[in-house]
């Protein structure tokens, strides 16, 4: 999956956005996340995972190819910690994880957020 596939999902599943608008919104989402991390701020996406920042001290390492000792300078790194929900989604085929499927089966008529036209 690439960003183009995500754009396609936004375009076809949401409706009301042109392809260009869908692409711009997906870009905006990832740009916002990049900017946030670039300010030293973590990101928590509930149900998906956390993007966390860690400061690493300088340490001694080795070039794995030559065995030569090298100094690994201090740095800040980004780690992704998957949420329990995402981990579960990868490990059980729970179709209940898609609430839309079960919700639509028992759906009562929409509680009229601007959809009142059908009831005269």
């Amino acid at each position, binding site marked *: *999956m*690439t*960003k183009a*596939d*995500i754009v396609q*999902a*936004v375009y076809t*599943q*949401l409706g*009301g*956005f042109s392809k260009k608008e869908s692409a*711009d*919104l*997906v870009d*905006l*989402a*990832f740009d*916002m*996340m*990049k900017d*946030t*991390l*670039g*300010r*030293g*701020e*973590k*990101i*928590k*996406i*509930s*149900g*998906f*995972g*956390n*993007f*966390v*920042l*860690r*400061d690493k001290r300088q340490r001694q390492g080795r070039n794995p190819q030559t065995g030569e000792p090298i100094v690994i300078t*201090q*740095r*800040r*790194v*980004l*780690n*992704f*910690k*998957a*949420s*329990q929900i*995402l*981990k579960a*989604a*990868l*490990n059980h085929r729970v179709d209940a994880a898609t609430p839309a499927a079960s919700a639509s089966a028992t759906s009562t008529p929409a509680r009229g957020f601007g959809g009142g036209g059908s009831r005269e």
Partner: protein
Amino acid sequence: MTKSELIDAIAARGQLTKARAELVVNCVFDAMTEALRAGEGIEIRGFGSFTVRPYKPYSGRNPRTGQPVPVPAKRLPFFKVGKELKEIVNDSRHLAITGGDDSDD
């Protein structure tokens, strides 16, 4: 930044309602979750890539009691930071890390 703060930011910058922005953000992460569930990797240029890594079953231990616990085979998502984001992050070293603890909500 939390998901709802991301939604607010997109609503403001993208000039759309919060309700619409929420649909967009949910759609993005749902699509990504679905891809990973299907065992497919995700590649976002400039940001990073997600892959699914299979882990074999092993015998772990309850750290409190020392009891052995069988850990079943599992699949876990793995994120590799993209080159551009890696640099952006490292360049923020002079700033304090903010955004609360790392717990799930």
